[in-house]
């Protein structure tokens, strides 16, 4: 029997606020354990939460970007459970009245994935599990109270690839909005997946499992693929899928059931009495909507329409807002979109990759790249040389002009100098000259190579070729 997968995602993104959701402690990542805590986020008796205004704003940004309805009236609730990383033994979250609901995100192929809700909540602390044989765990509450948004999709995804694409698109949007770092490896973007199978072409829903511990995009795809195969095998053998939470084991590339609790969780949600409701003014929401940047999908469309870029280029250039900003800044000084795109996707991305540089760390002056591209276009420098110069521009921040001067790179457009070299080469290679004159056209390529060697690659090969051909033609007659 053929099965179709039914996949829904629950994505948690840590918000890039300065302070925690309910207190003024810093949210900076990587501090020494328990150095970013206070009576409030430690849950000391008598302390009270006060909501960070940026958390509401950031959640609304996400909601608006994902086409959600923004609630007129929203509130916070307590989710009660005991765990050492949860200082108050309840998490302040949102239960029935989230800030945003009923949105959607459209995938590249046009498919719409519905967003059920987006709500705000606090993160828990970090548990350092017992080393082998030791009978304790250590608790660090630096992360306790860091603001999160939880984005829940409808079960609209049908393949691991779609799920990965959704998550990539979502990450892109959150980064464009500037509301989260979205670093999966640091845990500032986390994703759980619900998955079940149904016989192809039917609406009969199967039993779902929930997958946790997915730490990368690749892991999301693999965990889902593994789970689809596992569930399909069970169903094919006439067995049933058990409703459970399973953990993705990266090392062994498999999912395993998590130790199930003796009883089903009963979180006893109720309205948080320490916080008052949130009532959003339409004008406030409109003001936030007005500050939203152009989002990746729209920008991609615009790059295609405005600059006639291929979809592939537009997609890569809009992968992160700083890249798209950089591209368009280059175009302000040098309007040859495809050439700029080629150079950015080729050279810039390669150098960034080698340097392990994130898009937001890009510091190259777009005017410098524009200047360089102009010089290449005008034949002043070769593309090869241009790449060499750009590498120095990239590493040092110097302008192409400065690099050319400092490196003593001669301008190949100097025809007097170039002609001297060409004459030299013709003199030194009578054999090849003879071959060429006897009709062996490929000898010309050899001669070009010789000129390039003598000029240490600084000559424009096309100019050299033209000049050689002209000289040889003169000899011929």
């Amino acid at each position, binding site marked *: 029997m053929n099965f179709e997968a039914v996949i829904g995602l629950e994505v948690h993104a840590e918000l890039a606020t300065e302070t925690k959701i309910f207190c003024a402690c810093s949210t900076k990542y990587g501090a020494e354990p328990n150095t970013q805590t206070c*009576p409030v986020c*430690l*849950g*000391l*008796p*008598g*302390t*009270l*939460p*006060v*909501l960070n205004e940026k958390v509401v704003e950031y959640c609304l940004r996400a909601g608006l970007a994902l086409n959600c309805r923004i609630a007129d009236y929203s509130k916070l609730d*307590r989710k*009660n459970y*005991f765990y*050492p990383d949860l*200082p*108050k*033994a*309840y998490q302040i979250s949102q239960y029935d009245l989230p800030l945003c609901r009923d949105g959607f995100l459209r995938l590249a192929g046009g498919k719409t994935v519905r967003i059920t809700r987006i709500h705000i909540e606090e993160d828990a602390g970090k548990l350092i599990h017992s080393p082998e044989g030791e*009978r*304790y765990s250590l*608790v660090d509450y630096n992360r306790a109270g860091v603001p999160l948004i939880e984005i829940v999709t409808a079960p609209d995804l049908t393949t691991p690839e779609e799920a990965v694409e959704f998550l990539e698109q979502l990450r892109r949007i959150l980064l464009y909005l500037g509301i989260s770092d979205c670093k999966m490896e640091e845990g500032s973007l986390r994703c759980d997946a619900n998955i079940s199978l149904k016989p192809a072409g039917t609406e009969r829903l199967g039993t779902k499992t929930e997958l946790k511990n997915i730490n990368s995009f690749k892991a999301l795809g693999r965990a889902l693929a593994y789970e689809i195969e596992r569930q399909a095998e069970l169903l094919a053998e006439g067995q049933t899928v058990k409703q459970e939470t399973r953990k993705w084991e990266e090392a062994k590339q498999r999912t395993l059931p998590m130790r199930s609790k003796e009883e089903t969780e*009963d979180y*006893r*949600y*109720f309205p948080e*009495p*320490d*916080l*008052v409701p949130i009532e959003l003014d339409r004008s406030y929401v409109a003001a936030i909507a007005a500050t939203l940047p152009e989002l990746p999908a729209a920008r991609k469309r615009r790059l295609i329409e405005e600059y006639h870029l291929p979809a592939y280029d537009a997609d890569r250039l809009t992968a992160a807002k700083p890249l798209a900003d950089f591209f368009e800044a280059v175009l302000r000084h040098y309007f040859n979109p495809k050439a700029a795109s080629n150079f950015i996707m080729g050279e810039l991305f390669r150098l960034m990759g080698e340097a392990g540089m994130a898009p937001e760390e890009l510091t190259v002056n777009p005017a410098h790249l524009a200047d360089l591209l102009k010089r290449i276009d005008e034949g002043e420098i070769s593309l090869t040389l241009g790449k060499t110069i750009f590498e120095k521009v990239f590493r040092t921040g110097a302008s192409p002009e400065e690099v050319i001067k400092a490196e003593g790179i001669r301008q190949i457009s100097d025809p007097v100098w170039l002609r001297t070299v060409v004459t030299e080469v013709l003199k030194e290679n009578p054999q090849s000259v003879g071959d060429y004159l006897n009709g062996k056209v490929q000898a010309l390529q050899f001669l070009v190579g010789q000129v390039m060697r003598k000029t240490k690659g600084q000559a424009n090969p096309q100019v050299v070729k033209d000049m050689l051909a002209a000289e040889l033609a003169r000899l011929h007659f």
Partner: protein
Amino acid sequence: MELCDLTLHEIKDLFARKEVLPSMVLEAVAGRIREVEKSLGAYLALDLDTAFTAARAADARFQAGKALGTLDGIPVAIKDNLCQAGKETTCASRILQGFVPPYTATAVQKLLDQGAVIIGRTNMDEFAMGSSTENSAVKPAKNPWDPRRVPGGSSGGSAVAVAAGEAIVALGSDTGGSIRQPAAFCGVTGLKPTYGLVSRYGLVAFASSFDQIGPIAKDAEDCALLLAAIAGFDPLDATSVRGEPVDYRQELDRELTGCKIGLPREYFGAGLDDEVRRIIMTAVEQLEELGARVVELSLKLTEYALPVYYLISSAEASSNLARYDGIRYGRAAADRAELAAYYTKTRTEGFGPEVKRRIMLGTYALSAGYYEAYYQKAQQVRTLICREFAEAFRAVDAIVTPTSPTLPFRLGERLADPLAMYLSDVCTVPVNIAGLPAISIPCGFVRGLPVGMQIIGRPFAEGTILNIAHQFQKVTAYHRARPNGAERGEQK
């Protein structure tokens, strides 16, 4: 009458006339503590050394003519559920043994900023759950009018301290009557402010949507002074209300002519002690003589107030008290081998029976399948009770009821029967449900035991109820009676 039996405003007058210095008042209070504390159990912790240092500093300020504020040099007792940096705060619970907060409650900080001399932390029902102070894990407090009887609760220690001259004024907290009922039982004046008037930051939570800190003092004027000192918006408490500071003492000179007072018949029905009823009705006549117009009215939902209160407060408490797990603070189980067992052992050993009962009741009311029937139903009825009060206050300026349906009962009398104990709060909980302000003032004695009258006001109308109380106290002397026999009001 000794210095420690005087009111705050009387002492301030003595300070102003330079007849007395703060350390002399503290001497008197310390002397009284030495005399009676052992038999009354008002305090869980005394810090007289620090208090004397503070009092001498206040002496110097007075001598230099640089007194800080209303409370400068005044010995104040604070309930043991108000955090003070560096001072063990236990809520009279084993589970908080040794807990020393690194921060101070806003209300306490305001007292300190105004020069108050904090002498110690008062006894209470564990986590403020109770109506007799018998639920203290340390010791019960005793009623100074009759030590065989309870002083009321949960702020029993604060009420005892003020009544017995072991403090000039005190702070308590009131979730369902915990300031007013012990004030009534101990013959002192206690005010529960409107929810949101006083910051709850640093008040160890029992039921967050009901809890308020308030003054316990010897008369309404003192309550006005102490309330003005602690009220006000606090950015650390999202449920504290913005508003201009009010000088409540300025509100105390209005005649009652034209003031309309409602008597809700539901508070005077079955269950009300006949002698208490007689005393209250006499007090009501007194108010009429002062010019007030008294009308009967009906608050039909009163009988639903107890279940609403106990369901919601227990639900909130079950969540508020979940944090006591032995990891970050407080008493912990010795065996750390297994997580669930550690939690259970820590909490089972740390909490007393009443606290456990409320946690259980609250957990039950919130648990799957019961939320709608209990918690949500209670919240809906809460809405109706609020509306009913609002409706009543369209017709009257204040509502007068007994504070407690009975006289102070004997120690142990109601311990075995939680429902009977809960009934002690029947007159006070509706006020917390609606978040209203209410004051309890002494209005007579029955066989040497004080009776309290509750005056309930509109939201933020503390001035109105303080004025009614003050006008009453101007023509009566019940509030001047002291249990040590200094001046018995009942003979007046």
